[in-house]
Structures are given as C-alpha cells and as structure tokens.
C-alpha cells in the first residue's frame, strides 16, 4: 500500500485490509479461524437466530480442549453438553472438528502449528486470548470475544482499529538454565501486565532468533499477559524448517512461492516503532511468580518481596506468603507441566532429561499433560512417558487441564502449585488454589526437590 518503511505487523495488516473508510475501523480479512467449545456456542446460536451461514468453513477449524477430561472416568454432564453442542454446530455448519478421542485433538494453539496451518503473514483469530501464540510464525494472531467469533463465522472478516507497534529486543546469550519461559516472565516482570496494551509486540534480537519455534511460541503465547494485542516474530529459516513437510504447509512450487513471500515480511530496516524496550539476555534468570498476576514475578534467587501497594498485600495474603521468604524455600503441593504455553515436545523432552533416573518428592502430586494427542504419541515413541511414569508423574491425555479450573484437573483450596501455565490469577487453577508460574525445567526440578529449585540445584 504505502512506500513508507513498514514493520512486520503493519505489512501483515496492510495486506488484509478488505475495506478502509475515513472514520471507520479497517475491515480485516481472517485467513484462519480456530474454534473451541467454550467461546463458540453462543456465536453459533447467533448465526441460527439471524439465519446466517458460516462464510468459509474451509478456513475454520474446531477442537475440544478447555473442559475435556485428561483421564478416563465419569464426565461432568455440563461439560459433555458443551462438547456435544460443538459437535452439533460443526456438523450443521460443515466445520472440521477434532473431538476428544481423535488423534488430531489437542489444545487449539498446539494443533494449528502442528498441522502446518499456522503460517507466516496470516491473520489468525480465535475466541481465546492465547491466540497470540501463533505470532511466533510471523502471523498476526489475536484473541477475540464471542460476538467477534460470530462476526468472523458470518463474514470471515473483523472490523479492527490498527494497534500501535512495539519492539521488544532481547539480545545476547541466555545464561545456562534460562529458557523461553524465563524470557517472557522476566519481560512481564519488567513492563507489567498493562505494558503492551494497545500494541502489537514484535520480539526481535539475537536471543529471540536463537529460540526454537516451540520457544518462540512460549514467548508469543504470554504476550497477552503483558496486555499486548498480539506478539510476533519475523519468520526465518527456523520457521521455514519447522513448517516444511507439515500436512497443511505449501509444497512443491507453492512452497517456493510461499518462501519468497514470507521472506518479504520482515520489518524494514528503517521502520520505526511507537514504543521500544530493550532487554539484555545476560540479566535474565529462572523466574517464579509470587503473586496473583504474571507481573508479580521475581528471580528464583530472590525472596518474596515486601508489598509496595494494597494489591501486593492482597496477593501475599491470598498466596499465603511472608515477605522475605526465599523463593527456594516455598514448597508446592502440585507440579503441573502442560498448557498452551509449555506442552510441546521440546518442553516434554526438557522435563524428561531432568527427571531421568529421579523421583518426585514423596507426598507431591505431579502431572504432565501433552498439548495434543500427536505430541503424546511422539513423546511415547521417544520413551518419554516411561521416564515420567518412573519418576512418579501422571501421564495424561491432551487438553488445557490444570491451566484453568474448568475440567477435573484442579487445585484444592489453599493448595500450592508450580505450574508451566500462563496465569496465576486468584482461583485460576481451582477455587482458593495458589499458582506459581515457572518454566518446564524449574517445574521438573521442583517436583524432585519438593521446593522451588533449578536442575543445577539437584
């Protein structure tokens, strides 16, 4: 559109504008719409009430993830009804669905990339705030509400105002034992839960470039925890190597065309951002959240901080923590490795490498929930499940599981977790539950030691 230098986010935006009119939001085309059972039933009802159809079922994909049980047993009838509603809606409107029991089923933000559907340059939406995950491929991907889900189903477009641009540059080598989860936790601890509000973040710099696709997904996943509209990383050879050969990735001559196009997406050298943040990777450490939002996070080497405001006081009271307590002295009751943040094969391999030949501390509950049934199968082919079981971890089926308290995997009131998920909000993992956000490495080591620690501490 414009000859001016553009950022990655602006380039993707520009090529999706269906209609632009003075004083109105841009009408943006959606390339891929992901649907799950919780935020869609009212949208399908809306379509029925107004006699509308789904414009592009072939750009829509549904799965069951939020309230699926991850273990065989009796099922909550209300959850079953919601999953059945999704099944009926997908039948009626011709949408491809991965239901429970299907090898394609999994967390919506794990299966899109796994299938090769998540590609650079796309606009991807889903009625889920962690849609930002897909930005790891250089897609503009963001969460929407149910009214907007209905809008996309009916029109394959969304009226949107162009967000601001924000560069977060992380340069340098990560210290030993510091991973992608620590990059994003350390960032949110610095800029806060509203630090990215109104902006699409582009993660840049040598540290980001050196991350695997799984690591990049972990970083982009938690963009929303910094309040950002979306998080993106320019596609590069790491991206292309991940995509090549996946079922829905282009092939043959199409692959060549796609590569040429994808390489043109990177932010122009002289483009400017509305906001810029720089982080020195050497300053990052393993992190553990102590409070009730992801910004309330400190280094594992630190202590529970003195409260500086009423919110911190309330958080400490809820978490049952005393200021000055070394983080390493806090003892969780449960360790959860899973969620759309950290349930991919590399996360499981990392955990297995630490757990190999070790056992979970007596009295501690530990579970690993793969992000998709295909991740589960791959892990089993690699023998990781044997390592987990031998260590005393439960090995489950795919789903959102203990990341959010809407399936049977929950914390009891007062129970404390070390969790690789993304939110430590009050009650997030079950009413009265106390969540500490950590990396898979810290989670695995903590399960062995019984208190927060790194693998090096073992």
């Amino acid at each position, binding site marked *: 559109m414009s000859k001016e230098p553009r950022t990655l986010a602006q380039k993707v935006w520009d090529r999706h504008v269906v209609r632009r009119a003075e004083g*109105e939001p841009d009408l943006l085309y959606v390339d891929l719409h992901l649907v799950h059972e919780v935020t869609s*039933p009212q949208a399908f009802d809306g379509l029925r009430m*107004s006699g509308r159809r789904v414009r592009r079922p072939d750009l829509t994909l549904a799965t069951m993830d939020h309230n699926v049980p991850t273990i065989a047993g009796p099922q909550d009838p209300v959850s079953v009804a919601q999953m059945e509603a999704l099944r009926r809606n997908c039948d009626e409107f011709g949408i491809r669905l991965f239901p429970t029991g299907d090898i394609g089923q999994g967390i919506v933000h794990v299966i899109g990339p796994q299938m090769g559907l998540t590609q650079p340059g796309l606009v991807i939406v889903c009625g889920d705030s962690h849609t930002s995950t897909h930005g790891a491929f250089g897609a503009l991907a963001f969460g929407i509400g149910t*009214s907007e889900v209905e809008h996309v189903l009916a029109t394959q477009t969304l009226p949107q105002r162009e967000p601001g641009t924000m560069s977060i540059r992380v340069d340098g080598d990560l210290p030993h034992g510091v991973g992608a989860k620590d990059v994003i936790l350390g960032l949110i601890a610095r800029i806060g839960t509203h630090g990215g*509000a109104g902006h699409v973040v582009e993660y840049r710099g040598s540290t980001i470039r050196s991350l695997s696709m799984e690591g990049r997904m972990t970083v982009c996943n938690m963009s929303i925890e910094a*309040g950002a509209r979306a998080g993106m990383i320019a596609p590069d050879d790491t991206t292309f190597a991940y995509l090549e050969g996946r079922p829905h990735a282009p092939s043959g001559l199409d692959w060549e065309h796609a590569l040429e*196009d994808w390489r043109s997406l990177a932010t122009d050298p002289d483009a400017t951002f509305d906001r810029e943040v720089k982080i020195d990777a050497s300053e990052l450490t393993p992190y553990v959240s102590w409070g009730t*939002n992801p910004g309330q996070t400190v280094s594992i080497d630190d202590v529970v901080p003195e409260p500086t405001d009423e919110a911190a006081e309330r958080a400490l009271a809820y978490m049952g923590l005393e200021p000055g307590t070394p983080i390493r002295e806090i003892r969780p009751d449960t360790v959860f490795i899973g969620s759309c943040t950290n349930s991919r094969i590399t996360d499981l391999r990392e955990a297995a490498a630490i757990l190999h030949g070790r056992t979970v501390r007596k009295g501690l509950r530990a579970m690993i929930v793969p992000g998709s049934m295909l991740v589960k199968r791959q892990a089993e082919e690699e023998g990781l499940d044997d390592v987990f079981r031998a260590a005393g971890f439960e090995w489950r089926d795919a789903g959102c599981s203990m990341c959010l308290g809407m399936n049977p995997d929950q914390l009891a009131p007062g129970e404390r977790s070390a969790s690789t998920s993304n939110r430590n909000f009050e009650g997030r993992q079950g009413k009265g539950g106390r969540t500490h956000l950590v990396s898979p490495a810290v989670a695995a080591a903590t399960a062995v030691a019984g208190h927060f620690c790194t693998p090096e501490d073992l």
Partner: protein
Amino acid sequence: MQPFTTHIGKAVPLDRADVDTDQIIPAEYLKRIERTGFGPFLFDSWRSDPDFVLNRPGYAGATILLAGLNFGSGSSREHAVWALEDHGFRVVISPSFADIFRNNCTKVGLLPVELPADTVRRLMDLVLDDPATEITVDLDSKRVSAPGLEATFEIDDFTRWCLLEGLDDIGLTLRHEDAIGTFEAARSPWLPTTAR
C-alpha cells in the same frame, strides 16, 4: 444489542487494579451454552465475603461500576461482560481497560468509559461518602457528571454511533459483501485451508 444513549444511575466502587476476567467470572461457570444467566456468578469468589463492596446494601441496584487500572485483563471470555450486564451494570468506568474486554463491552452494549485515574478516584470518593450519589453518563456528548464533577471521555465515532443506535455490526459488515468477495478472489492460491 440495546442502544445506549444516556444513563443515570448509582455506582459501586471496586477499588482494585488488574481485575482479570477470571475474577469477573470464574471458568467453572463458562460451561453454559446460553448467553444469559451469568449475573449470579459475577465476582463469584469475592462475593462469598459479606463485606465485599457488591454485597453492601448501600450499593444494591448500582448500574455503574467504578473500577481500577487495567480492568478486564486476561482471558477473552465475553461471559465476563455478559455477567456484568446480567447483574444490571450498563457502564464501567476505569482509568484503563484491557483491549479484548473493551472490545467485548462495545459489542454487547456495556459502555466502557476511560477517565483519568484522579477523576475515577474522585468518583469513587463521592460514592464512598454517599452511596446514593447519582452519576450521569451521556454517550452523545461523551460526558460524565456527578455532584461537583464534570468530565469528558474519548470514544471513537464509529463505536459511539454503533452503541447509540444499538447496531448489529455483522449486518454492517455484510453491506460490504462484494468487497469481501473481491478480496477473496485475489488471495494467493497456496494459502492454507483446513480441508483434509
């Protein structure tokens, strides 16, 4: 959605920052497949405390929520807006909203009003002093008034027009179906589809 023009009502002060949508409505109540009936579960865990501000008799019947910084962060669940609306709220006033929550509000017809932190503080003090204080929110003139206080707020003209008229924005978009069709016809053939 019902049109929003002017609203006069009592307000309840929820003086907390970073109130996430998990607090507004916990996940366990998201299993319902209807759009209504979420009001009883609004702020569910906090409401078990008899001293929680929404439980205080003076604020019964309040239709305006005065909230802290970064209200509605976290999960995209529109159920949070449905719960506020079902409880009887028509306006939320805060120094800042999380982006998805603000979007969801405008789709449902719950008016998100952003005012400077000190103005929100003064409004909270007014209703803390006298819970019967009435606040007027006029969308047409983008003005909030209370005894001894006048403030204006920003909202883009398009969203304001949709709210004033109670418009169905899917209907608005479908007026541009030709443009959507033209755009679709020009998309690269190698772009992915979800078909097998």
